[in-house]
């Protein structure tokens, strides 16, 4: 399935937190043997709960890891035009050369990612002037044009971050991350802290930019309804492992992993009055994960085999993979989606 036209291929990636502090040695397997590939011109959603390892995974993808998180094993290959690069094997100059021009990043928490004592204008020139590789005049022309395309007034360039509202600031960081028209954008929970109305606008903006530029976006959030609306494909992460991956529609209508089935089935909806059940138990501790399938203590379908043997991620349908011994028996929980969408008067 690794196709040379894919923009990113990840093979057997393992990244652990290794800590030794005042005599306590701990190893947290935040990313444990993940294999996936990202196609050109798609939005790939990564879903998972808190401390499922999803944030660690994209930090690894963005080559943004710091000790104590380190890549232990596996390969990571980006293909930008003629450039083929594994950031963990390349020199830091080579990695810096692709940053922002080809690979950019929208970080979690728009409140704190912009330098509070620097005007937005300076952030743009610091981040994008060099990668864009044009003269000053062209740079500002392009920046202004880009802002206008995103329905942002070029006046915001004069502002300080704290003078903008949360939603505006998040739009600015998206503009900043996309001004060089990168082929690959990593977005880490960019809408989590926003109000519902603003959230929808910002999501639409990301989708828009992605379509205009034909870039690939890796979008991380725990919120399945966000994924439903922005992702082309979704990868579900549980306890450091990829447990299911497939086209968004397939995961919502015919999930093949009990965890996914629960996630999409327990979402309350306006107009739906059926009782939604909760999943029992607690999310696993990554420092001491359950044996076998890590989901087995909470799984309604668990059998003895699940406690001892790790299920491999296997193809269960068209570009649909699942890591479950009983994938065939997984049924969607909710009334089947796909019924006519509610009409709002």
């Amino acid at each position, binding site marked *: 399935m690794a196709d040379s036209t894919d923009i990113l291929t990840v093979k057997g990636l393992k990244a652990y937190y290794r800590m030794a502090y005042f005599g306590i040695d701990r190893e947290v397997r935040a990313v444990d043997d993940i294999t996936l590939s990202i196609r050109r011109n798609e939005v790939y959603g990564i879903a998972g709960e808190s401390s499922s390892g999803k944030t660690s995974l994209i930090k690894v993808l963005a080559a943004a890891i710091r000790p104590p998180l380190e890549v232990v094993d596996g390969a990571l290959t980006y293909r930008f035009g003629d450039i083929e690069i594994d950031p963990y094997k390349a020199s830091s100059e080579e990695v810096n050369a692709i940053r922002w021009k080809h690979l950019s990043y929208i970080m979690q928490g728009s409140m704190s990612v912009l330098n509070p004592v620097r005007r937005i204008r300076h952030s743009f020139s610091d981040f994008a002037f060099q990668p864009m590789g044009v003269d000053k005049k062209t740079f500002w022309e392009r920046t202004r044009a880009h802002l206008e395309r995103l329905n942002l007034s070029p006046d915001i360039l004069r502002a300080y971050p704290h003078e903008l509202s949360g939603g505006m600031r998040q739009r600015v960081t998206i503009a900043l991350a996309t001004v060089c028209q990168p082929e690959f954008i990593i977005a880490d929970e960019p809408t989590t802290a926003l109000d519902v109305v603003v959230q929808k606008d910002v999501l639409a903006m990301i989708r828009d930019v992605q379509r205009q530029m034909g870039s690939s976006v890796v979008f991380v959030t725990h919120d399945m309804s966000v994924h439903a609306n922005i992702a082309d494909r979704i990868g579900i992460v549980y306890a450091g492992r990829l447990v299911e991956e497939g086209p968004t529609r397939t995961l919502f209508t015919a999930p093949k992993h009990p965890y996914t089935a629960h996630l*999409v089935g327990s979402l*309350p909806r306006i107009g739906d009055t059926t009782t939604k059940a909760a999943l*029992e138990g607690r*999310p696993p501790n990554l420092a001491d994960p359950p044996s076998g399938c890590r989901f087995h203590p909470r799984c309604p379908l668990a059998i003895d085999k699940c406690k001892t043997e790790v299920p491999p991620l296997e193809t269960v349908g068209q570009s649909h993979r699942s890591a479950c011994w009983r994938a065939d028996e997984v049924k969607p929980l909710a009334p089947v*989606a796909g019924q006519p969408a509610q009409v*709002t008067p």
Partner: protein
Amino acid sequence: MTALLDVTAVSKRFAMGGILSRKQTDAVVDVSFTLASGTPEIFTIIGESGSGKTTLARMILGLEDPSDGQIVFEGSSAEERRNAARRLAFMRRVQPVFQNPFEAFNPLKQVERYLEATARTLLGLKDRTAIEDAMDGALQKVGLSYAEIKGRFPHELSGGQLQRVAIARALIPEPALLIADEPVSMVDASLRMSIVNLLRDLRDTFGVSVIYITHDLATAYYISDRIMIMQKGHVVEMGPARPVLETPQHPYSRLLKQSVLSTENAGQGVLEPADRSIARAAWENAGSGRLVEKPDGRMVRE
């Protein structure tokens, strides 16, 4: 029918700045509603950040005084609760549920500490076995037991368990009203519904009324009897939950509903930005007009 809680024309202004420059913001403007005693219900307040929903909750809990209007709980207002004994009596009847269960417990202390203090001071229990019985009784209501949490520290429990312990703590004095400000926004998706279902069970099984404060229309639809939608401190629409959420009438309510991300068209990539004309109407007319009663029992600001 007597009133459990009677909120009459309540407003809250905050003075910004210091002595020399005085600016005022209206956090809550002229809000009125009543909860009847004897008929437990889940009354939901919906709003975005800055809508005044949290300020309103704080005023009901007596943590903030209204600038105008009256909040009367079981016949007594906040001014009548100045002394410690009256405060304690009030806390026996009204209890909060917190937003972030990991924050609601001191990480350096065992979780049972809060339950024990509640049983001791609010119920006036002295005897160790009586206290443990009270704690266990409350924990049973939320599907836990004292044996499960005895000697545990917050980091040893999951977010969902902690939130249930927090709710059990609030239930110890057998209050008539719980005020839950965003009780599930920090709880993991897979555990979220257990808390929402619990709130519903409290109403149905134990007759506790709940004021549920949230920005999430879907869970509001799922458990509420009545809802009240707030925008910039004003109530824009109020009434029976399901009709209001199914067919909202005020432009702002419609904007909120349109902004809810639906999963119906999952994977189609249909993501129209909210209708700008509705949005404009909603924001430009924020707070203008007055509440008008409609035939189906709802109130809409026009």
